[in-house]
């Protein structure tokens, strides 16, 4: 992690997305080498190349140089331009893989982004379109990014053939607000979306039944929605999934998701999602594990004041992200136990001094 003037250097293919995002936001070039250099099939994968192409579309003046073998890349960031963009995502990854980094960039664009992505809408690896719509975007609202923020799921696409389509609309902001979120509150409602495409539509209802069998004991305010997509809107492959989210009295969101697998009954898929939600609720905090990095990034970009947030222990990705943020922005977080007197509590308070990041792209317009 040597750092020369305006150039940050990493090795390896991991954590590529957040590093590219940090480079574009900070304006510092990033060089990544040894990308799968020991692998039988070395270099960047097709979906990573596609991500770089998408970032080129979202920005203006970005230069991407990839070595002949594909094992090294240099990205010199341009400005975030936004505007209407269409991108076909390769079927190796779901659209969540591509959308997650774009969500971190879009609020700081020159023009509001209207991005259409085509591909797989729900899979096991990345946030599904449902999770992004119902959980990720509300997290942006904590930072004052709200009016006109929307994700429309036009068509669903299950793996392997995909065929889904979503439209992401994001407003631009001058600056993001400082976060002060230390009170997790108590869970007051649970919402869920069950969808089933190109399979028996009863599968949605079977998932909902199974989930209720566990969750009904806790609170009455449970609404599980069976989302029906028919014909052309249901993509090219069969599949179903259940997305669950729990909201607390202080609007803390915890979410989980389970996706259909061959040979597994809809009831079992639903039970997996339900138990994962309980595990997530049990972990506590104000932000769930999947959204740690996004929230921490927005805290770094916040106005010049101390931002605080209570969360569970950092994940692998979060640990690396905290280090990478320091490389690009020089910001390190203070991380202390949330309840120093309670030895059983693993919750932590993350705090940092915001960099006062201003959307300079916007003022150029």
């Amino acid at each position: 992690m040597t750092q020369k003037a305006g150039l940050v250097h990493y090795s390896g293919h991991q954590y590529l997305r957040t590093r590219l995002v940090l480079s574009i936001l900070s304006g510092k070039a990033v060089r990544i080498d040894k990308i799968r250099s020991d692998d039988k099939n070395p270099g960047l994968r097709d979906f990573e190349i596609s991500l770089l192409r998408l970032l080129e579309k979202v920005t203006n003046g970005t230069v991407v140089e990839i070595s002949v073998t594909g094992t090294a890349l240099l990205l010199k960031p341009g400005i975030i331009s936004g505007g209407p963009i269409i991108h076909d995502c390769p079927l190796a990854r779901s659209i969540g893989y591509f959308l997650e980094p774009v969500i971190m960039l879009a609020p700081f664009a020159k023009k509001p982004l209207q991005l259409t992505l085509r591909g797989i809408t729900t899979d096991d690896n990345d946030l599904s379109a449902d999770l992004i719509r119902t959980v990720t975007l509300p997290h942006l609202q904590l930072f004052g990014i709200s009016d006109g923020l929307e994700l429309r799921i036009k068509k669903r696409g299950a793996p392997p053939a995909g065929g889904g389509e979503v439209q992401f609309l994001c407003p631009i902001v001058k600056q993001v607000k400082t976060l002060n979120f230390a009170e997790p509150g108590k869970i007051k409602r649970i919402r869920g979306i069950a969808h089933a495409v190109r399979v028996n539509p009863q599968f949605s209802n079977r998932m909902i039944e199974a989930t209720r069998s566990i969750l009904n004991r806790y609170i009455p305010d449970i609404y599980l929605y069976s989302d029906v997509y028919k014909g052309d809107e249901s993509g090219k492959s069969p599949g179903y999934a259940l997305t669950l989210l729990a909201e607390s009295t202080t609007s803390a969101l915890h979410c989980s998701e389970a996706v259909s697998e061959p040979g597994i009954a809809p009831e079992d898929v639903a039970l997996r999602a339900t138990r994962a939600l309980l595990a997530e609720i049990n972990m506590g905090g104000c932000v769930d594990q999947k959204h740690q990095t996004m929230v921490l990034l927005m805290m770094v970009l916040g106005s010049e004041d101390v931002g605080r947030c209570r969360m569970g222990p950092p994940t692998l990705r979060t640990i690396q992200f905290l280090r990478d943020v320091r490389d690009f922005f020089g910001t390190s977080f203070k991380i202390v136990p949330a309840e120093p007197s309670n030895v059983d509590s693993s919750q932590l308070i993350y705090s940092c001094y915001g960099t006062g990041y201003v959307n300079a792209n916007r003022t150029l317009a």
Partner: protein
Amino acid sequence: LPHRRRRRKDWMKLIYSTSLTPEQILSHGGESEAEKVNQDEGDDDDFFRIKKKDDLSRGEELDKTKEALKEQDLKQWEDDDMLESIRHLFITGESNLEE
């Protein structure tokens, strides 16, 4: 006090002042491991470095946001007592349990 120190990780030290990989930090990785690695780095005299076996044998790790659901983590929720144990986190539960 020493008891507490054993239980709690010093996250800031582990993240910012060691060169442990995130995997090492999250695995049992306590203070002792941090010291071990710091010592290893002292020996930069060796011209050649032997590649660690787990570096090579490790399969492709996807850059993914959703971590795989762990079966044993989910299994514990089949137990009724476990289900009851988090009732205080809901508005319908008693509030004096935690506070």
